[in-house]
């Protein structure tokens, strides 16, 4: 198990930020999840929640932190005694995406800009197995790592006021799906009929940090079929389990 040089800083009266080296990598994600789960198991009485992102976690305590040095010392000792207990089960979720131009508002522009044919863009986008780094920004918004360099595309200069639920976009070096209609500045290249957030479930998003995601290109007809199955609750998202 690889250990990293971490930095600990006070974030607010009740929270501490722990930072890993500032780059995006699967080994950092793995260590973050290990430490986070270890803390939630061992310090559940004092910790109210832990927010994780690419290379940092924010630990929020139930009560005001009176002795920051003591808290940091305790975190350090937790980090040193964290254990790689279970073999992490990684799921690869198969996410249907329709890249039809009726959804893909920016696909033509991207084809011109990147000098790639539309089928090439679709191929590059759907062949990759993406890593779910964390869920943030909006409820059910997955931060995915692994976008092919040839598809990097700056965010739009002026964001759209309304982006459809399920829109699949590219923003800079990232790709993702809008779980709900919202304003946004990403280049839209398709739409997924899947629901990424179910407010009525205790586990409101099927995916979690550490899982994988692959996009499966579907035509408009299949998209509509899946959408109606999603709406009447009969659709089951396909997933494969890999041993980590």
């Amino acid at each position, binding site marked *: 198990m690889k250990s990293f040089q971490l930095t600990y800083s006070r974030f607010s009266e009740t929270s501490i930020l722990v930072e890993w080296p500032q780059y995006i990598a699967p080994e950092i994600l793995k260590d973050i999840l290990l430490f986070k789960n270890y803390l939630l198991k061992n310090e559940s009485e004092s910790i109210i929640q832990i927010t994780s992102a690419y290379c940092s976690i924010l630990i929020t305590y139930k009560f005001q932190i009176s002795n920051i040095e003591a808290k940091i010392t305790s975190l350090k000792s937790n980090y040193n005694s964290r254990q790689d207990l279970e073999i992490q089960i990684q799921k690869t979720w198969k996410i249907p995406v329709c890249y039809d131009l009726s959804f893909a508002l920016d696909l033509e522009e991207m084809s011109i800009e990147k000098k790639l044919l539309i089928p090439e863009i679709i191929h590059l986008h759907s062949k990759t197995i993406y890593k779910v780094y964390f869920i*943030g*920004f909006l409820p059910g918004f997955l931060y995915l790592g692994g976008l092919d360099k040839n598809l990097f595309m700056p965010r739009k200069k002026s964001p759209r006021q309304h982006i459809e639920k399920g829109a699949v976009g590219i923003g800079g070096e990232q790709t993702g799906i809008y779980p709900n209609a919202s304003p946004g500045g990403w280049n839209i290249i398709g739409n997924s009929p899947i629901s990424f957030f179910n407010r009525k479930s205790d586990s409101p998003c099927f995916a979690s940090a550490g899982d994988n995601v692959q996009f499966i290109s579907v035509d408009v007809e299949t998209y509509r079929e899946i959408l109606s199955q999603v709406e009447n609750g009969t659709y089951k998202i396909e997933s494969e389990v890999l041993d980590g």
Partner: protein
Amino acid sequence: MVEILKAGLYDSIQDLGRFGYQEFGVPISGAMDHYSAKLANAVLGNQEDAALLEFTLIAPRLKFHSDTAICITGMESQAQINEKPVDNNVYIIVRKNDILSFGSRKLGCRGYVAVYGGFLSEKVMESRSFYKSITEQQRLITGDFIKVSQVPIPIKRSNAILKTPQAHLESFGIEVFKGVDFEILNTDHQNKIFTTEFTISKDSNRMAYQLDERFENSLEPIITAPVSPGTVQLTPSGQLMVLMRDCQTTGGYPRILQLSEMAINRLSQKISGQTFRFDVLTA
């Protein structure tokens, strides 16, 4: 039941927030001014996180469909029961068919109405705080009925006299800690941030308060990282944004300051056009 006879500018049900679901991207949300919310619940002897009604700038007109006790805190605008003036921060017994209305705003901008035992709107992920895509409703509208606790009010009422310090609704200094990314500011900005008189912009809501004054910079965005209510972000266009209770869970702009818990409460009582200064606290 409590009926919204006429909705205010922005009415919602809030408690102290939704914790433990940030791994799904769920914001904390909750009452903008925790101090006033806790005060209202304390006067009634409720749990401190009982759900209450929050209004902004223009108060709603409410009708009670059962006997209960209420407490009004936060924004000052002469409250009236059946057109008779009542005070803020006190225990008020209301009877079936009583009507609560308010005069125009005098001080502050977030008001709270707590009922005995709390409002019993839909609970999602352990909280009743309204939030788009989490709760069925994002705001209350005219004609809505909200369930309230049916526990009979106690005969012996609380006599506690609790007063909101005047400073709470009109403080000039907003207490902050240096943010985790403070050191990347240039020295000029590091000094200027604590001497500038900032103005709250028109684009301010439960998610964030934007400030009018610009801090031109050439800072790189950070790798998307955690943020929380009270985090002050600086965008590449020089905009300062103070994240408020409905803020998202992560962000990609440098986090240059962090408001104290009390400072979030106090800032949330300020309206666009008002000015303040950041006062640094030493950790």
